[in-house]
C-alpha cells in the first residue's frame, strides 16, 4: 500500500493537524510551561470556547473563528480571575502543588457539568462555508476544515512568540518564569505579570475551542481527550518554549498521520507517545527546553 503520493498526503495532513494541536497547546505552554501552574482545566476552557462558537454560530450564524477572536477579551478576564483565586487560595500560601492541582481538576468538572446543564449533552457542531470542502494541489488533498485551524494555530503561535520576545509585558512573563525575585527588583509585580500571562493562556482557549469545533463535534466531556495530548506536547517541546510547542505539535501530528496512513491508525497514539518518551530520554528538558 506504500506510495509517495500517500506519504505526501500524510505529511501534509500531519502538518495541518499539528497546527491545530499547537493552538490547543499554546495556553498550556504559557500557564504550565512558563508559570508553573498545572492548569489541568485548560482543555475544559477550550471546550468552553467551542461552545461559545457553537452558540454564536447556531443563534446568529457567526463564523466560529470570528467568535473565537471576539470572545478572547472575555476569556482573558475569566483567566485573570481564575488565576487571582488560585494565587490567593494556594500559590501565596505555598500550597499550590497538590491542592492547586485539585483546584484545577475541580474547575474542569465544574465547567463540564455547567455546560451539560446549560446546553445538554448532545453533540454540537458548527456550520461554515469552508467545512466539508477541500482542494487538490498536485495530488495532495487539503481539507479546509483542517487548513483554516492550522493557519490560525500558526498565527497564534507567531503572535504569542512576538509578544513574549518583543514587548515589555512579554519579556516580563519570560522573566517571571526564570526569576521572580529579580523581576521584583526591576520594579515589576510578578503576580500582576502572571495574571496577565494566565489570562492570555485562557484567551487562547477561546480561539482554540473555535478551531476544535470546526474540526469535529464536541460534547462537554470532549476535554478529557485532550488533557494527555496537550501536556505531552508542552513537555516534548520544552517547558516554556513557544517555538518548541509548535515543533512538538507538528511532530506528533505528522507521526499520527503517517502511522494512520501507512501502518494502521491503532498505532498512531502509541507511536506519538513513544516519540515523547524517546525524546525525553535523550533530552529530559524537551526538544527546546533550557
Amino acid at each position, binding site marked *: 500500500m506504500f506510495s509517495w503520493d500517500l506519504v505526501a498526503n*500524510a505529511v501534509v495532513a500531519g502538518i*495541518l*493537524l499539528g497546527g491545530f494541536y499547537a493552538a490547543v497547546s499554546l495556553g498550556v505552554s504559557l500557564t504550565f510551561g512558563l508559570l508553573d501552574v498545572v492548569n489541568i482545566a485548560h482543555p475544559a476552557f477550550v471546550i468552553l470556547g467551542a461552545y461559545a462558537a457553537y452558540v454564536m454560530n447556531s443563534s446568529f450564524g457567526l463564523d466560529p473563528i470570528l467568535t473565537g477572536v471576539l470572545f478572547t477579551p472575555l476569556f482573558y478576564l475569566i483567566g485573570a480571575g481564575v488565576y487571582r483565586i488560585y494565587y490567593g487560595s494556594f500559590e501565596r500560601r505555598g500550597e499550590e502543588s497538590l491542592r492547586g492541582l485539585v483546584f484545577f481538576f475541580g474547575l474542569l468538572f465544574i465547567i463540564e457539568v455547567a455546560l451539560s446543564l446549560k446546553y445538554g449533552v448532545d453533540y454540537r*457542531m458548527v456550520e461554515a462555508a469552508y467545512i466539508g470542502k*477541500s482542494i487538490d494541489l498536485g495530488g495532495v488533498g487539503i*481539507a479546509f476544515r483542517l487548513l483554516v485551524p492550522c493557519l490560525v494555530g500558526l498565527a497564534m503561535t507567531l503572535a504569542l512568540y512576538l509578544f513574549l520576545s518583543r514587548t515589555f509585558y512579554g519579556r516580563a512573563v519570560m522573566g517571571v518564569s526564570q526569576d521572580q525575585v529579580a523581576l521584583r527588583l526591576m520594579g515589576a509585580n510578578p503576580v500582576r505579570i502572571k495574571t496577565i500571562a494566565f489570562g492570555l493562556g485562557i484567551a487562547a482557549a477561546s480561539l482554540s475551542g473555535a478551531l476544535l469545533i470546526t474540526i469535529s463535534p464536541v*460534547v462537554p466531556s470532549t476535554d478529557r481527550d485532550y488533557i494527555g495530548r496537550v501536556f505531552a506536547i508542552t513537555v516534548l517541546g520544552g517547558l516554556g518554549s513557544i517555538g518548541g510547542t509548535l515543533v512538538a505539535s507538528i511532530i506528533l501530528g505528522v507521526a499520527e498521520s503517517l502511522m494512520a496512513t501507512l501502518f*494502521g*491508525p*491503532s498505532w498512531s497514539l502509541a507511536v506519538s507517545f513513544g516519540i515523547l518518551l524517546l525524546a525525553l530520554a535523550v533530552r529530559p528538558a524537551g526538544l527546546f527546553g533550557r
Partner: protein
Amino acid sequence: MTRAKTLLGLALVGAVAIALVLGGTGVFVARAADPIKIGLGMALTGGLSANGKPALMAIQIWKDDVNKKGGLLGRPVEVIAYDDQTNAATVPGIYTKLLEVDKVNFVVSGYGTNLIAPLMPIAMERKLTIMGILGLANNEKYKYPNYFQIQPSGPDPEANWATGFFEIAAKQNPKPQTIALVGADAEYPRHAIAGARELVKKFGFKTVYDKSYPPSTVDYTPIARAIKAVNPDVVFVASYPPDSVGMVRAAAEVGLQPKIFGGGMVGLQFTTVMASLGPMLNGIVNYDFWAPESTMMFPGIKEFFAEYQKRAKEAGVDTLGYYLPPFAYSAVQILGLAIEGSKSLDQQKVADYIRANEFSTIVGKVRFGANGEWAKSRVLQVQYQGVKGTDVEQFRGPGKKVVLYPEEFKSGNMIYPYSAAQK
C-alpha cells in the same frame, strides 16, 4: 436464672404476637400506595451522556404514562436513577445502593455495552431480572437466563448486527467484490467488526483493508485516504459519533467513493449529527433501529415522540429522539407488562413471563430468545436519500432515511452505487 429465662420467653412470645398482629393489620406488608421502585444507573454525564439523558427521559415518560393509568398492580411506579458518569467503575456501587438502601423492586441497566457489563455479575449473584438497554453481546459469555436486552440485535448479536448490510451488498448488480473494514478500538466497534469479518467470509467478499483506530483520533483524512488507496467496493465502518462524523467528512474531503459506504456508524441517527452533515449523508447505508417511515408506525410511537420531543427541547437532548429513546421506553414497558401479566414482583416469575411471551411495544412486537436477545433480529439498514441542506425538519417525515432491510419493513429501494445517491 429460672426467672430470667421465663422473662426472656415471655418477651419472645410477646414480640412474635406483636409481629403477627401488626403483620395482620398490614403494617409489615406493602401498602397499596407504596410505589413499585425501579432503579437504574444512567450516563447523565461523560462520554455516553448524549444517549443516557434521552434514555432516562424516555423511562420517565413511561413512568408517567403508567401512573396516569393507575400504576402497576394498583401501585404507583417510582423511578430512582443515579448518574453513572459513563464510568463502569461506578456501576457496582450504584446498584448496591439501589438494592440495599433504596430497596428497589427491579433494576434496569444503564445505556450501552460497557455499562451493562459490570451489572451482569451483580444481577447473577442476586438472581435479578434485568432489562438491558442497548448492549451488544453482553450475555454471550454469561448465558444468564434472566437477562433481556432491548436492542434488536437478534439471537447472534455480533453477526446479526451487520447481516442486513452484507445481504444488501451481495444483492447488488454488479456484485461488489472487495471490502474495507474499519472501526474504533472500543467495545462496540470491536464486536461489530468481529461480526462483519464472519459475514465477509459468508458472503464471499475479499477484505482489502482491516484496521482499527484509537477513539480519540482527531483527523480521519489519513484513514480515509489509506482506504481510498486500496480502492474497495464496500467500506464498512463501525464507529462512535465523533468518529462517524470524522469519517463521513473525511470521505467527502478525500473523495472516497466506494460502491457502498456505511454499516455500523453510531451517531448518524442523532438529530444534530444528521442536521450538521446534511447532504454528505446521501447514499450512506447504515444500521438503524427506527425511522419515520410508514412501515415503522407501531401503536403508541407517535404519542411517545410527541411527549418526548416536547421534553427534549427543554432538556437540550436529541430533539427527534428516533434512535435510543423509544427502545429505552420499550424496555421498561416490557418490564411493566410482565409485572402486570405475572401479577407478581417476584424476580423469577417476572423473568419467566418475559421469556414466555411476546410483547406489543411502541417499537413493535418483541419476543426474546434463549440468550435474552430479540428472538429475531430487526436491525434495520437505512439509506439516506435526498437530504438537502441542514434543516432538521426534513428528517421528521418519510423519505430521507429509507428502510432497505429487513424486507418486511422495507420502505423504498436502494440507490446504487453510493455516488449515484450523492448527485
